[in-house]
């Protein structure tokens, strides 16, 4: 089974909600416009099309755009030796989508990380707790509106978090012809008034 036949079968199985992006450097990307069908799609990929491995799930915060969040799934077929990338979008008002843990057990920790860093809820997840930050941390630090230096909070049991001193940073390197111009310079993420 080639990837082309897989894509043809899929577009017949999921009419009106799959868009195929132009192939880029040998990588195939599908856009799933209806995020609620992601678990069905994954089930089809695994059971019918031989995608036995979920490589990764990641999320993108397109702050200022609507819909704001994008979830990217990477599937791989050990049987046939090809990748498939599936993207779907999540809006800020309805910040949830179905879990893939019912299909791939490995999705458990990937989804926990996305929940921890961006606050996207996965409905049906068996154990949706924070994985990197501690339980009770009130923010989602990889959102674009979260400052790099962090925000203050109290941790139960007597410690705290506080914003880190930036000293004019963060220090950003920009492409330039001369090394002296490529030196990291202090650059505020906020527009200068």
């Amino acid at each position, binding site marked *: 089974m080639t990837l082309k036949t897989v894509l043809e079968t899929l577009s017949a199985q999921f009419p009106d909600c799959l868009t195929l992006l132009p192939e880029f450097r040998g990588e195939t990307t599908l856009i799933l416009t209806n995020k609620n069908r992601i678990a069905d799609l994954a089930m089809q990929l695994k059971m019918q099309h031989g995608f036995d491995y979920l490589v990764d799930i990641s999320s993108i915060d397109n702050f200022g755009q609507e819909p704001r969040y994008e979830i990217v799934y990477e599937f791989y077929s050990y049987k046939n030796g090809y990748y498939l990338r599936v993207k779907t979008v999540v809006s800020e008002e309805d910040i949830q989508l179905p879990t893939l843990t019912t299909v791939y057990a490995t999705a458990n920790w990937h989804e926990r990380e996305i929940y921890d860093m961006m606050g996207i809820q996965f409905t049906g997840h068996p154990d949706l707790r924070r994985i990197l930050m501690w339980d009770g941390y009130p923010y989602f630090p990889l959102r674009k509106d979260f400052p790099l230096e*962090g925000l203050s909070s109290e941790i139960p049991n007597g410690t705290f978090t506080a914003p880190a001193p930036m000293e004019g940073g963060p220090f950003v390197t920009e492409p330039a012809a001369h090394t002296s111009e490529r030196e990291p310079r202090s650059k505020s993420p906020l527009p200068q008034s």
Partner: protein
Amino acid sequence: MVHNRENQVIGYNSKIEGNVVMTTMDAAINWIHKNSLWPMPMGLACCAIELMAAASSRFDISRFGAEVMRFSPRQSDLLVVAGTVTYKMALAVKRIYDQMPNPKWVIAMGACASSGGMYRSYAVLQGIDRLLPVDVYISGCPPRPEALLDGLMRLQSKIGTERSFLAQKK
């Protein structure tokens, strides 16, 4: 030489001549403390590798009496915070410090433990001194074992100035 009526020596015994040292309680207690520090290695990042090197034969921290690395806070009196302290780990570091019996000292080893180092980030505590009282800061990223030994010697001279006997009476 003082004798009683039976001509026995009562004020001075020549048999123990040269075996008596006059000192103060503070000096004696401090001498005991500083030459037998039992470190709790709080290895959190690459500084811990240098801490291990300091304990090995080439640098040999046992020359300074601090070779008994204890992995239980209840058996140690020197917390060596070696590495990046994230806020998540800070809870554990504080808990370990609280479990150590008094008297106890803290060495902040390396840039991260002293000030957060290069991690100006939401996740990293900007210096362990925001949570614990630090006695000696050691610069470096990571510091060489010699720097750790130097910090240890500075801590020893600091312990030498403490009023330990008064602290024990309290």
